[in-house]
């Protein structure tokens, strides 16, 4: 009985190893058709109006080691977005000059906004209708329903105008969350009306909806750690063990088993219970701040973090070891894997 059990466990173990190898192989194949995109907002020493700097949208093929600026230098880039349906692909840059869109894999770009929206801090895309776009700006949320030709400011119900991030609900495309100066706001009618969710602390810097349990929301805050709700925003509590500092980045593995958070002198934190308690991923790169986190959709142990001025770090073992993979000096606001 015992021998059988041992044999069975070996078979399982071998099977797991084979599956894992196959998975890795498949991932590499798949990654051959996908690229990492990094939004570089700033390079150390860069001055707005000064000499051009290597900032903008960077692309690194998974088989490559070099990041290439696929736009032109000199564009402050706060965030990126991607929309795909069938053969139609759209790439977006949320930047200082406005919201940029490319429909030809980044070869050419068009600025969709005008002076009215000023800087674009992030972009949120309707998952079904590509003509519906939302942007977060220092002066509020703007929406376009005609593919960026016209924009309308959507602020009804908001008490402050600074909005840093927008998140579209995974189950209802008319429901969005806005990380604003004073609170996390929610709209259920595509931005026509907003209501405060009462996080309890001001300065909402980032927001994340759990991929499976969509009533679970997390927000990273200015100086108050990460706060969590498991009931769609009715009640909030602080993530336990986390330092009460600023958290800029939140990310989930695709299965939602692991949640990650990082911020100002925090290191990288991980939660496996919907954000209730957190543990420090160790060792973590010695960086001043984590601006962005990426978890590979096919391999939850494959992590990337974008830092404030210290480039991008990569780990293939869930944070057991890290390697700097470039963009030294860059403030990396977002990292994604797109075709």
């Amino acid at each position: 009985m015992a021998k059988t059990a041992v044999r069975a466990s070996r078979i399982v173990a071998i099977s797991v190893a084979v599956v894992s190898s196959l998975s890795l192989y498949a991932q590499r194949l798949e990654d051959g058709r996908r690229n990492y995109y990094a939004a570089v907002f700033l390079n150390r020493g860069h001055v707005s109006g000064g000499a051009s700097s290597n900032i903008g949208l960077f692309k690194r093929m998974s088989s490559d080691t070099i990041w290439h600026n696929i736009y032109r230098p000199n564009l402050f880039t706060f965030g990126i977005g991607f929309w795909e349906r069938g053969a139609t692909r759209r790439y977006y840059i949320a930047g200082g000059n406005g919201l940029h869109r490319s429909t030809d894999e980044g070869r050419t770009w068009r600025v969709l906004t005008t002076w009215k929206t000023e800087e674009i801090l992030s972009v949120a895309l309707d998952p079904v209708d590509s003509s519906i776009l939302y942007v977060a700006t220092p002066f509020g949320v703007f929406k376009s329903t005609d593919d960026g030709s016209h924009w309308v400011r959507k602020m009804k119900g908001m008490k402050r105008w600074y909005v840093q991030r927008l998140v579209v609900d995974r189950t209802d495309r008319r429901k969005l969350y806005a990380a604003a100066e004073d609170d996390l706001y929610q709209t259920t009618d595509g931005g026509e009306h907003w209501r405060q969710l009462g996080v309890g602390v001001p300065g909402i810097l980032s927001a994340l909806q759990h991929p499976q349990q969509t009533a679970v929301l997390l927000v990273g805050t200015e100086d108050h750690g990460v706060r969590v709700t498991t009931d769609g925003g009715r009640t909030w509590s602080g993530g336990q063990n986390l330092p009460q500092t600023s958290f800029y980045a939140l990310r989930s593995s695709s299965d939602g088993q692991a949640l990650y958070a990082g911020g100002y002198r925090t290191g990288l934190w991980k939660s496996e219970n919907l954000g209730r308690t957190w543990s420090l991923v160790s060792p973590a790169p010695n960086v001043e701040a984590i601006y962005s986190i990426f978890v590979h959709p096919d391999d939850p142990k494959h992590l990337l973090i974008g830092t404030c001025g210290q480039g991008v770090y990569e780990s293939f073992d869930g944070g057991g070891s890290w390697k700097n993979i470039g963009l030294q000096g860059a403030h990396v606001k977002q990292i994604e894997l797109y075709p």
Partner: protein
Amino acid sequence: MRNSAVILLTVLFLVPSVEARAQPSFEQRRQRLIEVVAGERDRSFFTVTAKLVTGKDKEFAIQMLDSLTTDQSIGGMFYSYAAIGSYLRLRDQLPDSLKAKMRNSFRERTMYRGDTENHWVMYYTGLYLAAQTWPNEGRSQWYNGKSSDENFREAEEWLNLWFKTSSTIGQGEFDSPTYFITFITPVLTLYEFASDPVMKRRAQMMADLLFADFAVEHLNGNYCGGHSRDYPEDIMNPLSAPAALWAWLYFGEPQFELWQETRYRPRHRGGWETVFGAMSSYRLPEIIYSIATDRSTPYVHTETKRVRNIIRFGLEKNPPVYKYTYMTRHYALGSLQGGILQPIQQHTWDVTFASDKPYNTIFTLHPFYSGKELAMFFPEEQKFLSDEVDRYHKIYTNPNKWNSSSPFEQTFQHKNTILVLYNIDKGITHPHIDGFFPKNLDERSIDPSGWIFCRMGATYVAFYSLRPYEWIEEEINWRWRSFELMNCIVVEVGSSDEEGPFEQFKRNLQARSPALTGGGRNPTIEYTTRSGDHMKFTFNGPRLLNGKPVNFAEYKFFNGPYLHSERKSGVVTMTYKNHVRELDFDKATIKEWQKLQ
């Protein structure tokens, strides 16, 4: 006796205008500047343009222009307007290949728009003129994927909005001796090359407004009083600021060539933007010239401006800024009301002496810095903003800096007296107040009465600190420093015109001692000026003049003997003697007339 009176009258009538008296004339000055800049070697659109306009070093200039069009390390708003300004001035003499490269710059280079008012003025001026120059071109022909028509309309719309805002509630980056150039140069470029007569007229009016705004606070080449933003070198040494070269060109003051001066030259060796003014067909209206240069009668001038766009930690996007300036022929005393009105480079108050000497100013500040202050205006993470700003401005977090806004500093000025209250929170990183006293003052003495008396030429300054302080000797100045978290400075300024001898001025003040009362969040200062006005001022509280509250809400957009405008009216009226010039920004009209005597 009667004969001499007749002779005197005759002389008065025969004396030509102030402009004609100043040597050399505007035409001579502008020619001189073009010649000087044409002889420069630094790579810029300004020197290239001057060279090609004068025919000097033509081959070298063409090479330089070529390198400016191919160098991808430069770009953005500073590039945009200067490039199109050069192109439009020079296109008849440029080879086709170079013209094509310049066109290409607007196709292949990111003209970054930036994040400040001056950035946008330069950016949209460049875009407007480029789209006008290359009309009817499709989206693929422009760096931003918009067509000529789309770019033109967007630029036109924003420029018109900026004219309207600046003529009704004021600039956010107002009265800056450095950033003045980043407004006036694109505006004159727009005036010179806009095909649309309405846009051209509005640009002319905006140039008039910028110059008039400067003129009322101008003294002998110095841009006086409170500034939205400036660099420490220019604050300590006002004639080293770029605006001084524009004053030289248009106001004829100072009367020496700044580029020959070590105080100007090392800092601004490449800053030849003024040559675009020298080449422009814009002519300063005589009335603005007179306002800038006639200092025969002292006057009070007040203004309303606006705080730069607040993006967070505020309930109003552009709260008002209140400016007060007292101007005489020997000195100017000017101030902003205090608080955070601009990040990084605010200059809240000063006395400026009419002197050819360098370092002709006295002022105080609290060297405040905070990531939160910066985050009010910039959409970046406040934890890093101080460091990022330090990388460029170098001194933002420095305890010895000479420019700063502070929430712990407030002012109350009445004519040539100012009270500056400091009420610094405990735990602030730099808990001290600094004062700048140049070493080249003709006199500086500490009187047993507590007053510090200073003289530079005919100007007298009396400075009183209600709490202890110390002196720190530095290379060019004495640094007055007080570590008292709550303190008040009283400054009275006078001159030989008003006071007679310096000793008399001192005597008038020795018996006066200001009193600081209250504490906590509301210290109050009471002081009776040497002219008998009673000033009572509470931090975060009322300012009482002879018992009556000073109501900032009643401040006009401009109010003084030379410049008048109701806030939000869009009508600015200049008056000099019986001469009136009215700018109506809403109607885009300029009217001039003579008042009946």
